């Protein structure tokens, strides 16, 4: 009964296209504005936190860790308050993950400390016996790339209107200013760290990846 479609390839293509677009339009479009509204008090990522987030993405941490606490007692007991849409308003991309080979990290800043992360990234088995997480020795060697941090902060501020420079939100600025802000933040983290090489690097004006990573994880509350 649909033979006419099977004889006309362009019509077939058009019918397929119309059929497959409906679901997405109905499910995604209606709540689009509502979903992008930030929760009250949500601050954009600071320079060092943004650097840590970029490292988190580079290393595909989301392959094993979620950032989504579901509204179950078993989850709120383990990880803290369940996640709200408005908390993700500045997350480009979102990092919910799909498999918890390791635990959820959405509120890890509430219950892990800088020195715990430091020991854990050197070797997760130092503090978590039986953990299967890889070691990340290169976090202690590579320097943070503030150029990309600067590029992302300016991009989200100018194109997506993320409210940098408003009230007591983090500041944007030139590459030089971003790096200076990053160094100030890094000093706060490094004073709680034990690795001497990280402290020495900071004294020379270098920020290692591990510092940014910890700054990002400490922010997640």
């Amino acid at each position: 009964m649909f033979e006419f479609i099977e004889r006309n390839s362009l019509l077939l293509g058009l019918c397929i296209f119309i059929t497959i677009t409906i679901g997405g339009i109905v499910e995604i479009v209606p709540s689009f504005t509502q979903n992008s509204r930030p929760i009250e008090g949500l601050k954009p990522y600071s320079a060092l936190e943004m650097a840590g987030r970029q490292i988190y993405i580079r290393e595909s941490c989301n392959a094993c860790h979620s950032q989504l606490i579901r509204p179950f007692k078993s989850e709120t007991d383990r990880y803290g308050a369940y996640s709200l849409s408005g908390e993700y308003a500045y997350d480009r991309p979102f990092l919910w993950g799909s498999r918890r080979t390791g635990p959820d990290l959405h509120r890890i800043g509430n219950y892990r400390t800088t020195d715990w992360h430091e020991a854990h990234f050197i070797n997760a088995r130092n503090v978590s016996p039986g953990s299967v997480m890889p070691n990340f020795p290169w976090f202690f060697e590579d320097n943070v790339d503030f150029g990309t941090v600067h590029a992302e902060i300016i991009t989200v501020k100018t194109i997506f209107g993320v409210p940098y420079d408003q009230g007591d939100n983090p500041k944007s600025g030139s590459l030089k200013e971003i790096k200076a802000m990053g160094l100030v933040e890094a000093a706060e983290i490094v004073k709680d760290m034990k690795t001497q090489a990280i402290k020495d690097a900071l004294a020379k004006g270098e920020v290692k990846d591990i510092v940014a990573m910890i700054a990002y994880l400490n922010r997640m509350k």
Partner: protein
Amino acid sequence: MSQTASIPDYDYSVAKAFTISTLVWGAIGMSVGLTIALELVFPQLNADLPWLSFNRLRPLHTNAVIFGFTLAGVFATWYYVSQRVLKVRMVLPAVGKFHVILFNLIIILAAYTLLAGHTSSKEYHELPWWLDILVVIMWLTWGVHIFAMLGARKEKTLYVSIWYYVACFIAVSMLYLINGLAIPTWFVTQTGNWWHSVSMFAGTNDAQVQWWFGHNAVAFVLTVPIIAISYYFIPKQANQPVYSYRLSLWSFWGLMFVYLWAGPHHMMYSTIPSWVQTLGMVFSLVLIIPSWGSMVNLLLTMSGKWEQLKTDPIAKFLIIGSTFYGFATLEGPIQAIKSVNAIAHFTDWIIGHVHNGTLGWVSFTIIGAIYHMVPRMWKTKLYSERLAENQFWIQTLGIVFYFSSMWIAGITQGAMWRTTDQFGSLAYSFLDTVNVMVPYWALRAVGGSLFLIGFFMFFYNIHRTIRGAAAFQAQAEAKSALDSGSAT
């Protein structure tokens, strides 16, 4: 009618190149898969090296098997099947050659960028923006070839397989383009990495767009073109027509409509609106109907020919492939039920489900199709049916190890996460639940090893078949010369 009188002179050059790409990317992608499976059992295998660590290899594994292996298999069958069902020799051979070269170049560049940590972090869409552009060019190249073939066709009515190939092309174009929308940051400030970009969508919206893509990438890369393959090769191998035209028709349009609604089952109990979750669950359940329509139609195509399964390893691969399609499309909707999903989500049960589909359905169907095509394209006969038969059983055993270990692992961990003691406190630390996983991960690695061993047997069998082609043809010519000599 004139099939035997004049065998049409098909051009298999591009189909052959894609067949070899399928074998190579399959071997690499599955080897990486086994590596990361072993890394969970022996974390020291990460070796403190960034490009050997689980976190960077995992996206490489998924990209290499989904886009390297599967898509190469899809393209190989397109360049073979399209000529035969449209009754026309391959048009635009230069476009086809450009397609195969660009495709392989993209997969090589993808492997490099993923190992280097250049990723968007979106599952199955990790490639950086500049590679996305190459992917779009590669995809449109295929589209040009599809519609050029359709325009040049001699057979007016389009066979079922063609509907599915066209749907694959159109849907993936739409999904990939929208989910890939991003702003490359270098163009804004001229600082930092030139490949870095920021997603066009934020937070919950980003998640919704991503899983609309992610779920339907499974639909239109790992399902729709594989159905296209089955609809051609099962009837060919059984040497009888598809069971029901009407069932093909309703299953096709049903699948097209329903699949796109089911994406929210990846975000149950998340921050997306509740009504979207419910709608996603309902449509996931409805999805059983068109999926099983295709499965039943494909399986019943063997009616009256079931004894062929005893002796023909190619029919075994194709029919067990479609059977796994039935398994996976029942298991998926069950996992999409909200109360089941509460336990299944974030666990290995999901990993097990995916591999039921990819190992059982996708790989077996592509392997069956390649076994069918290679002797015809190289004009020879299969090197060893016995080897194919052994491969079939080893790989089937591998899949059984894989899904049974992942079922137990997933449900165990999901249940342990929510177990409380008599005071209502959580009974297990997260580490407790990881330590319990290790034996199941070891069993999964055994299953993966068996599957990979089988894949290398396949590789070897095809390699020997192709290498023996010249000798086989020389022998056949000598024989026919002798026959015609004796006849006169």
